[in-house]
């Protein structure tokens, strides 16, 4: 093969891609080359000089990280000159590096320790005093810098510049006085600052939260997921004494590329909170008192039964948190629909947004697919605030050559990385999006082959956007016509193109129309159904996608209830209609709801203070609150049930790219708390059903059997890296892109009136 080079490293012959550097090539050959400054995700700089190798026909020794392979290269990593040079490098590094390993948080998992052990000399000849600095100095609330320990590999500075793109760290002074520092007068305020702790090959950058909490041998580790946003970054949970002491990245190239944001990395304190609910409580007069599970479940079941028999199931509501796992959500909707008999079921407290008419209601592409895009339209989305690690992926795409078009009135983080930043006036997003559709149609940049073969309804579309000429759009949005022209041309001609927008955008009137126009743009340019071309409605909460998939909202097809005989039992007894979360809250304010089951949600905490809402909750006959921490609604509850946090239970979460990923229990739930799916199961049994799930995987097996998109998934298949639904059961292939297969059904351009596309 032309693009492969054959190299011999320590006698091992390997074929590696041309242009690969020697450190990576050696890794493939199974040979370790020690490094400090080199990192596979960062550009090589050759700063630490640790990766010396000897190459035949090349004089002296060279740094492996800055040397690319050539065909026929013969490399020796154990040459006496290399050994001597590496010993010298380490002796110089240790001339100033303090030997305070016993008190250093990196001690025991430190590349400098390991490399010194593996490649260093027996003694240091350096006896003079080392340099001293005040230690440590805080760079931010989270990150501490010990300048004595720094070996100036610049990994942190390079990460902030190359990956995070914010250049919040820099190098100051010259020569022997060089230091890592923040910009003058600023703190280290990057939202990705925590990654530098993991990157630092010594204990120079350490976490203030983890400081002196544990040594590596004190820790038990367990794989898990970050549940702070919908990206679903893979984490390693390190626990000691039944507490989380830190979260580390567990690299999953398809999801997080090995990075975490600070919100995820440092946002675990809620799980360690001393106020965690540990015991079920029941109301006795004006106060709550601790109770055993049997009593609490009995009271909850009695309360629900009483309301259903006296007022009917239509007065019962179930509100769930979109951070709960699929197993919890699935059982919650079964409890509501099949056991209580109500469709007053929702995962949102605010009105549902208008969404793209394409089904299934999910991102069509994958996160890693964005790297293949040549053009990415970011429409009213701010991933830095809502899906931070996706922000890094979009920046990576930009650095790989993708042209970003940011459409946002606000200057989002990505605007600085964009080829074009269009700033429509507030409320004119729809006009701008339609203007782009108009331009593509008018300029004849339509992907005619795709439109003819896969879509329907283009004539209606043409008529609908006929008036949205660039002049008019420019006048009403304030975006100059030439910019619109450039954006439309990029989208239509510089493919593959992806369109990324905030799914909640559809909650506003102009956003709703913009979301529909975004679908039209994707279909017109044929940018759907392959790598790099897709439509990405970004959900926000950790398992919002799972809530959508499992029908955790009224007026949406619910998973069929399995019948005892094994077949699908249909939706018998499940009323159509039902109230959304926002409608339920209105009904609550009007005193029309009589019983409410809150699973991980607290309207009083999540919504602005609302007297009527508080009165409504007070007036409920039965208020069951299931949560992990105390909240204002619990003061009004009749029964409080303690749930388990993400690291205390089994389950699965579905991220924004349809990837189903697993949670593992790292700890037991505190006190008598139980995983949420188990509580719902127990409550359903207390209500007299025959729910019978012994473990979370039983619930997941049922999900896989009744939810078509989850067909074929098992905990085993999901494994450590997750699977994007739908799984092709025959081939075992996961779906990177939806709509790949033409099939018989045509993709429809959005109908004229946006309101008909509103799902709720």
């Amino acid at each position, binding site marked *: 093969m032309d693009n492969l080079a054959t190299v011999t490293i320590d006698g091992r012959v390997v074929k590696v891609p041309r242009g690969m550097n020697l450190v990576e090539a050696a890794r493939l050959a199974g040979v370790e080359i020690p490094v400090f400054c080199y990192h596979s995700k960062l550009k090589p700089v050759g700063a630490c000089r640790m990766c010396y190798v000897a190459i035949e026909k090349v004089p002296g020794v060279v740094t492996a990280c800055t040397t690319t392979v050539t065909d026929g290269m013969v490399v020796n990593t154990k040459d006496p000159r290399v050994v001597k040079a590496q010993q010298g490098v380490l002796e110089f590094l240790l001339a100033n590096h303090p030997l305070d390993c016993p*008190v250093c948080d990196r001690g025991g998992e430190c590349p400098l320790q390991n490399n010194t052990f593996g490649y260093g000399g027996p003694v240091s000849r350096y006896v003079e005093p080392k340099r001293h*600095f005040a230690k440590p100095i805080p760079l931010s609330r989270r990150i501490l810098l010990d300048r004595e320990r720094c070996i100036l590999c610049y990994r942190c500075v390079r990460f902030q510049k190359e990956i995070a793109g914010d250049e919040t760290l820099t190098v100051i002074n010259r020569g022997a006085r060089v230091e890592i520092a923040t910009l003058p007068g600023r703190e280290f305020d990057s939202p990705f600052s925590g990654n530098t702790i993991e990157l630092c090959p010594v204990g120079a950058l350490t976490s203030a939260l983890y400081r*002196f909490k*544990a040594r590596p041998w004190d820790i038990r580790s367990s794989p898990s997921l970050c549940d702070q946003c919908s990206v679903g970054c893979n984490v390693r949970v390190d626990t000691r004494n039944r507490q989380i002491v830190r979260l580390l990245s567990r690299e999953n190239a398809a999801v997080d590329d090995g990075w975490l944001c600070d919100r995820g990395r440092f946002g675990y304190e809620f799980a360690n909170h001393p106020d965690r609910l540990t015991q079920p409580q029941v109301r006795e007069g004006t106060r709550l008192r601790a109770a055993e599970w049997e009593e609490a479940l009995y009271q909850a079941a009695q309360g629900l039964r009483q309301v259903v028999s006296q007022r009917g199931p239509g007065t019962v509501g179930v509100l769930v948190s979109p951070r709960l796992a699929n197993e919890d959500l699935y059982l919650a909707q079964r409890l509501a629909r099949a056991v209580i008999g109500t469709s007053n079921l929702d995962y949102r407290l605010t009105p549902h947004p208008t969404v793209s008419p394409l089904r299934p209601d999910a991102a069509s592409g994958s996160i890693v697919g964005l790297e293949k895009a040549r053009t990415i339209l970011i429409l009213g989305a701010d991933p830095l605030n809502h899906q931070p690690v996706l922000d890094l992926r979009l920046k990576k795409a930009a650095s790989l050559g993708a042209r970003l078009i940011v459409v946002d009135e606000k200057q989002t983080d990505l605007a600085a990385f964009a080829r074009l930043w269009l700033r429509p006036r507030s409320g004119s997003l729809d006009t701008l999006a339609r203007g782009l559709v108009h331009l593509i149609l008018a300029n004849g940049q339509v992907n005619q082959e795709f439109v003819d073969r896969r879509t329907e309804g283009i004539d209606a579309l043409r008529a609908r956007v006929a008036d949205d000429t660039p002049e008019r759009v420019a006048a009403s949005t304030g975006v100059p016509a030439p910019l619109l022209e450039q954006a439309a041309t990029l989208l239509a001609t510089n493919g593959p193109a992806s369109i990324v927008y905030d799914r909640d955008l559809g909650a506003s009137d102009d956003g709703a129309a913009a979301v529909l126009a975004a679908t039209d743009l994707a279909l017109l340019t044929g940018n759907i159904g392959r790598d790099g071309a897709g439509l990405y409605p970004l959900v926000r909460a950790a398992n919002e996608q799972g809530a959508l998939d499992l029908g955790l909202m009224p007026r949406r097809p619910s998973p069929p209830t399995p019948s005892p005989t094994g077949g699908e039992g249909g939706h018998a007894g499940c009323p159509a209609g039902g109230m959304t979360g926002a409608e339920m809250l209105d009904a609550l304010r009007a005193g029309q709801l009589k019983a409410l089951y809150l699973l991980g949600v607290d309207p009083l905490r999540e919504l602005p203070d609302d007297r009527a809402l508080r009165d409504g909750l007070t007036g409920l006959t039965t208020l069951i609150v299931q949560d992990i921490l105390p909240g204002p609604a619990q003061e009004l509850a009749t029964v409080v049930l303690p749930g388990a946090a993400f690291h205390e239970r089994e389950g699965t979460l579905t991220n924004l790219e349809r990837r189903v990923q697993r949670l593992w229990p790292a700890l037991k739930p505190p006190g008598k708390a139980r995983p949420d799916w188990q509580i719902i199961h127990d409550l359903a049994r207390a209500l007299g059903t025959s729910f019978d799930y012994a473990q979370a995987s039983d619930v997941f097996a049922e999900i896989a059997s009744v939810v078509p998109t989850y067909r074929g998934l098992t905990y085993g298949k999901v494994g450590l890296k997750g699977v994007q639904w739908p799984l092709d059961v025959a081939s075992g292939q996961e779906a990177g892109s939806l709509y790949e297969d033409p099939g018989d059904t045509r993709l429809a351009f959005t109908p004229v009136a946006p309101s008909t596309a509103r799902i709720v």
Partner: protein
Amino acid sequence: MGEVGCSARVQREAMAHDVAKDIAALVKGLATTFKHLGRPATTVQYPEEKRPVSPRYRGRHMLMRYEDGLERCIGCSLCAGACPSRAIYVEAAENTDGERHSPGERYARRYEINLIRCIFCGMCEEVCPTQAIVLGHDYELADYDRADFIYTKERLLVPQPTKGPTSPPTPSPTRGGGWVR
């Protein structure tokens, strides 16, 4: 039937022989007793009287101090890592200038050894970078309550600063904020 008489005679003779042997043994034994009566005793009247143990004896652990009274232990948990029976628990915390327990940044806020688990192998002493933990000569460790075998830092820490020519010098702070010997 003459054999019966013969057998009885043999029996009588054997019995006389046994008695003679027993008396000889008694005399021999008492001779040893009387021989030692005048000699100094090798046993001691424990617990009133105690033998000195070997200088390298590994008894109950002690947490040592520097000459100025600062704790030697820096809470590094290496002893806990080296302990083959996982008998040691260390919880570290940060020294402040207002509340300084040990030189440098870190000290042990909690230090506990479960002496039921401990096998007195001395690995903790071996691995300690500051010679803070030392296995002493105390072996009287019996107790009535299992919980009392958890030796806390308060019980392990020696009350007085240790002095002596062999102890390493007390670390002192440098201008930059570090501590050196």
